[in-house]
Every structure is written in C-alpha cells, then in structure tokens.
C-alpha cells in the first residue's frame, strides 16, 4: 500500500502519456430542465486549457448535470449548448470520465478493466501501457486479480489508471475521491494531480479542501437557474497543502462563497 507520491512524480510525463494538446473549452447557452424546473438557462462555462477547474456548490444545483452535458451524456437537453474548443475541433471523443464510484466491471481482471476503452473501440489493447499505469498507481502486482479483492482506495486507483489509459486531453471527474477515507483521499489527490497535469480537467467536488488542493480555478455554482461566480485562483501550483498559511485567505473566501450559496439555496 505505497501510493507514495515520489515514484509517480518521476514517471508522470512518460507513463500517463502525452495527450494531444489540451483544448480550452467554452460552453455557452447551456439549458437543461429537470422535472420541468430549469436547472440552468443560458449557462456560460469556460475551462482553461491544461488547467484544473473545480466546481463546488449545494447538492442538486446541477454540477453533475453540467459535467454530463460536457461529456455528451445528456441526450434530451432542451437546447443543446454550443460547446466550443479553442483549437476548433469538436469535443466529442476527446473526453475521459471518472465517476464517484469506481465502476470496475466485476467479471474482468484489473488489467482488462484498465483496457476497457480499447476493447470497446475494437482497438488492440496496449498491455505494456496498462501495466505501466497500474505501476504508477502502485497496483501492478494486482493486475490479474478481480476487482472484488481490492479495497475501496485501490479500486479508485484502478479507476484513475483506467481514466489515464484513455489518454484524452479533457478529463471530467465527478467527486472522484468522495467515497474514500481521509488519508487515502489525500494520497490519491496528489497522485491524480501529478498524473493529470497538463490536461484540461473539470473536477466536481463537495470538499472545499479538495478544490484548494487540486484546482487552478475554483467556481461555486448556485441559484436556480444556476450561475457560476468568477473563478477563485488560489496561489501556487497544485497539488497544494490546504492547511498551509498562504492558502488561508483563499480558504476563507471560498467558505464565505459556499455559505452564501447555501444561504441562497435555503431562502
């Protein structure tokens, strides 16, 4: 169980792979109703290229829906939003998705789970890369085991390896570490931050400390229909240590914004 950050630091660039240059993304005119109630209307979101954008906000405000909209998983959006990438290419097929649950297939070995994308696309699965990524998350010795034999933290590390295996320039994550205990979560955050560096990432989270640790830009989503506030940009490059002094100001500001959002929701 050494998800130590040091080895991952050495191999990140090579193993995680050089994703094609990450695009900046602008979603505009996003419109989505849920149970006849507008979840968001004319929503405007910008994801900076190669940066981690964190999204916080009260439950049910539409964070996950926004993520699903970007992932192309919402088929019945009232009006499909304009999603523009600054390199002029479509976003379709350039997105990797990581869920709160690890979503490992229980019948497939760890290695086959990591290779799932290639199998689904009918491509020859790259065994060497899968094993290298499993090594990067410290699980190469478990490659032939079934997911049921792994702990929750290990399973989520496999899910991270599977996400990286896709080698997509854009990664969308929906509370990827929220089901883990504090120490495991802390380690995985460091690991993910290094392995995902240089990609355009949208991270939905409930945890302000996680946002402060991982995000280049932090938004709080609130209201109905929902809006994003201006981005909070904590000092220094992630992964940060959220308890350090220079983050105190950012943490205070973020908590104030979250309390505002919760208050607006309650009224």
């Amino acid at each position, binding site marked *: 169980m050494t998800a130590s950050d040091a080895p991952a630091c050495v191999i990140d660039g090579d193993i995680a792979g050089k994703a094609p240059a990450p695009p900046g993304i602008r979603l505009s005119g996003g419109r989505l109703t849920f149970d006849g109630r507008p979840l968001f209307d004319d929503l405007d979101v910008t994801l900076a290229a190669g940066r981690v954008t964190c999204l916080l906000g009260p439950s049910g405000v539409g964070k996950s829906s926004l993520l*699903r909209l970007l*992932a*192309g*998983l919402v088929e019945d959006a009232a009006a499909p939003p304009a999603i523009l990438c600054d390199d002029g290419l479509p976003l*379709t*097929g350039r*997105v*990797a*998705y990581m*869920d709160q*649950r690890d*979503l490992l*297939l*229980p*019948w*497939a070995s760890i290695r086959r789970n990591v290779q*799932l*994308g290639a*199998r*689904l*696309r*009918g491509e020859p699965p790259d065994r060497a890369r899968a094993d290298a990524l499993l090594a990067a998350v410290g699980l190469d010795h478990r490659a032939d085991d*079934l997911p*049921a034999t792994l702990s929750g933290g290990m399973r989520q590390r496999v899910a991270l390896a599977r996400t990286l295996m*896709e080698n997509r320039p854009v990664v*969308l994550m929906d509370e990827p570490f929220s089901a883990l205990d504090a120490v495991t979560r802390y380690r995985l955050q460091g690991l993910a931050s290094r392995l995902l560096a240089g990609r355009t990432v949208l991270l939905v989270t409930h945890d302000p400390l996680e946002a402060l640790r991982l995000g280049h830009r932090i938004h709080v989503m609130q209201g109905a229909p929902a809006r994003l506030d201006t981005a909070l940009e904590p000092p220094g490059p992630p992964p940060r240590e959220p308890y350090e002094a220079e983050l105190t100001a950012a943490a205070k500001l973020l908590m104030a914004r979250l309390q505002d959002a919760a208050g607006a929701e309650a009224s």
Partner: protein
Amino acid sequence: MSALRLAVVAAGLLLVWALIVRLSGVPPYILPGPELVLDAWTSHVPALARHGAVTFTEILLGLLAGTALGVVSALSVAGFRGARRWVLPVLVASQAIPVFALAPLLVLWLGYGMPSKVAMATLIIYFPVTVAFLDGLNRTDPAWLDLARTMTAGRGRAGRRAILWHVRVPAALPALASGLRVATAVAPIGAVVGEWVGSSAGLGYLMLHANGRMQIDLMFAALLTLAALSVLLYFTVDRLLRRLLPWQPERAFDRAA
C-alpha cells in the same frame, strides 16, 4: 453438510409416508407403502433406466434448444431497437397458451417420438430464460453505460454493439443464470406432459402404462426416478453456473451466512 440435510429430509418424508399407509390402512392399489415401491423399483431397474434415459435426453435437448432460443431472442430485443415490438408478443403468447393445450398438436405434427417432447420442454423454458436474460440486459448499471459511452463517443452503432457485448451481456449473465435455474426445474414438466399425450417411451409413458394396469407401486417408482433425475440435474446446473460466474455477488452472501 447439505448431503446430510438431504438425507434427513428424505428419511422424514419416508417415515411420514409409511405412517400414513400403516395408520389409515389404504389398500396398496391406492397408495403403496415405501417398501412396496422399493420392491417395484428394484425389480424394474432395466425398464426404469431405459425410460429414464429417454426422458432425461428429452429434458436436456429441450434445455439446450430453449436456452439457445431464449438467449437469441433476448439479445435481438436488446440489440435492435425495432426488435422489441416483434419479439415481445411472441414471447407473451408463448406463455399465454398453456403448453398442455399445445401438446396434442405437437404430437400430431412431430410424431410420437422424441421431437414433440423436446419441443414441449423447449416451449416451457423459452419464457423464463428469455425474460430473465432480457431483464438482466435492461438493468445494466446506468453509470457503467455512461462510462462506456464516453469511451465509444462518436462511434454510433458499432459503439452500441461493443457496449452490448463487453458490458451489458456479461452484466446480465447472473440474471440469465437465474432464468436457467428456473428452466432446469420446469423442463421435466414439458417432457413428461408430452409423454402423457402420446409416446411409446419415457417415464411419463411408463407412469401412464402402470396406472392403466393398476401397478401403482411401479408408477410411484417412476415418479421417484423422475424426481431424482430432476434434482440431480438442478444441482448439477446450479453448481456449474456458480463455477462459471465466480464474480457473482450472491456468493458473498453465501459466505457471510
């Protein structure tokens, strides 16, 4: 452990049976006691083996054919959006018409031999297999499907087919296994009903024959043979399915219990 339990249950049932015969004084041509049935069984071993083999073969062939048909039907409904409207009415009709009503027709069309009995067993298990598998295919965890969709984005039909094959089918195998267990338990009904309606071999034929000649002890012997075959078949299939699907969550329950 389970063998011991089985022996205790069997011994208990035999005891109750013997007591009823002894205490009520029913004549043996209405209800023979266990010892008479055992007599009949031992003196008719060759006949019971011959007819039992016929019935067992019919059950096995029916299981194979019904499972194949059911799996293909469920896959086509799950794989092609239009297929549901075509297959579903057939599926429901196959269950709405009692197999017993069809038996004389099947014997008329397929003859007194094995094919009509295999057809009966096939018909009777087609529904549980199809419905169970289809249910499993339709209940794939939506989050798995979302993940798979982002992996196959922009690939249209080929992507959907790959998701069916790599995610939905394996995920539905435990449900199919439940359907197969039900099918294994009811397949003998199809075969025996077919034999009652018209045949020259099989345990159903033997029972009818013995009944007509008031050999109730032989009839009971045939009945017990059928029950033993069915139980044996069920536990074999059950064990096989467990071995084939070791990741099935149900096992965790077994261990915890």
